[in-house]
């Protein structure tokens, strides 16, 4: 079964949850058996068996495991965060573009946007590539992977620096030498990161969110303003 999935990874297949890790009061990571090769920034469609299917970034991959990290914000994500080890969950992918693996990268994450960046940071670390990654959220309760990050900011100052993670990134840019900004988080944050990269004269890679129904560039529901598909030509878009 596993071997054949490796050949046709795009097909939906149901796996059993190996373990569940709580990241914060509203967010869990599902540890699933590895059934295909992903790359940082690429996403999978996760099926709440018998319910809906939604896109999630891969937050870690090891020789045997694939992880996704899910924040409960609506019916499907809530149901997925209630899964227990041994429960069935559907998965298909990986889809879309990934982040470049680049030296001297500054990674900036907002909230559950830390999911794909954790996979990127771990990959860069394994390859001994210089990088720093910053995580931010409104409050300490909404931070993900803060223990693994090189810098933390919360809007209310409940953990790390008080203020936005973009302000923290600006300070870091002034201090060190960076070749690229890579970010995932809410729209406003991404806009600010893009402006920051333009100021610094370095490229930015931003992971954007759109409504996704097929994940493979057919249905058109994820269209970007320029007509590209966020699922196929994104979610990671390069600027500059």
């Amino acid at each position, binding site marked *: 079964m596993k071997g054949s999935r490796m050949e*046709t990874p*795009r*097909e*939906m*297949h*149901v*796996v059993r949850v190996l373990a569940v890790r709580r990241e914060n009061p509203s967010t869990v990571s599902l540890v699933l058996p590895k059934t295909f090769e992903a790359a940082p920034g690429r996403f999978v*469609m996760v*099926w709440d*068996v*018998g319910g*809906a*299917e*939604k896109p999630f970034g891969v937050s870690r991959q090891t020789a045997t495991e694939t992880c996704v990290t899910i924040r409960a914000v609506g019916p499907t994500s809530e149901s997925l965060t209630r899964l227990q080890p041994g429960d*069935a969950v*559907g998965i*298909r992918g990986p889809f879309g573009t990934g982040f470049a693996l680049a030296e001297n990268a500054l990674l900036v994450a907002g909230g559950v946007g830390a999911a794909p960046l954790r996979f990127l940071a771990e990959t860069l670390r394994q390859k001994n590539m210089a990088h720093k990654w910053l995580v931010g959220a409104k409050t300490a309760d909404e931070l993900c992977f803060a223990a693994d990050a090189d810098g933390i900011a919360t809007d209310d100052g409940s953990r790390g620096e008080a203020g936005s993670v973009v302000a923290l990134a600006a300070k870091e840019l002034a201090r060190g030498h960076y070749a690229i900004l890579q970010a995932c988080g809410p729209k406003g944050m991404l806009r600010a990161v893009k402006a920051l990269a333009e100021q610094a004269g370095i490229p930015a890679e931003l992971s954007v969110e759109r409504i996704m*129904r*097929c*994940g*493979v*560039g*057919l*249905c*058109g*529901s994820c*269209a*970007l*303003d*320029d*007509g*590209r*598909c966020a699922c*196929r*030509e994104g979610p990671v878009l390069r600027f500059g």
Partner: protein
Amino acid sequence: MPSLATTLGPLRLPSPFVLASGILGTYEASLLRVAAAGAGAVTTKSCSLAPRAGHPTPCVLPWRGGFINAVGLSNPGVAEEAKVVRAFKASCRTPLIASVFGATPEEFAQLAAAMADAGADAVELNVSCPNVQSEFGTPFAADAAALKRVTAAAKKALAHSGTPLAVKLSLQCASIGEMARVVEGEGADWVVAINTVGPGMVIDPETGRPVLSNKRGGVSGTAILPLAVRAVYDIREACPHLPILATGGASRLEDVLQHFAAGAGAVAIGSAVADEGPAIFTRLAKELEEELSRRGLGNIAPLVGRAHA
């Protein structure tokens, strides 16, 4: 240099490769991008009078042989769709075929007129979607008398503007050649064959549950190529003078050559857009040009209908 230009009845296409209905066809930016990649025409996602949310996810699934989908005809409704058509036509000369679907002949007529008003270069009647049967009952494409009424009503609604009329047929009927004869008799300028096949079903073997939220869905892609080729062949046999826009399973030039040989004057590309994106229109045009040169042909006409010789 050979010419890729072809015609569907009165409609002239700069290239025989057409974007199939329902593929990327919700926003004008997506359609414009497909046009910029060299498509000979774009077909919009089928629209109805009122907006429809469609079925919940999972609604489009890749599988070994292609795709299965039950998008459920989600669309923004005719008023919004008319804006998309206007915006497209204001900035692009590529022909736009507006696909519509209604519950009655009167609705089809109203929709056809609205799309002609908005500037569509042709109207395509989707009488054959297999994914909304619980709502709409047997598709019109399976019932000769109903098909006749729908086609006649739309033709009448387009008489004033003179906008060409196409009808999209389905394999879900006793004889697709017979259905083509019916719509030809009511003045259809060409037929489109075929819509997705089915309905089919994909069941997750681990839990035994159907995966699509709608359980049943239409099958498309490589798996249906021989079915679509046969449908085109049957139609050409029944109606030697009715132009055919082949739709189903085409991703390679050799698939396109089969559709031409069966009798198609143009070929729509649907599922194959998933693998390559709009660039597939650029690739197929280049490959067809090379093929025509290799055969010493000036255009595709000698390739059309060869299987009937």
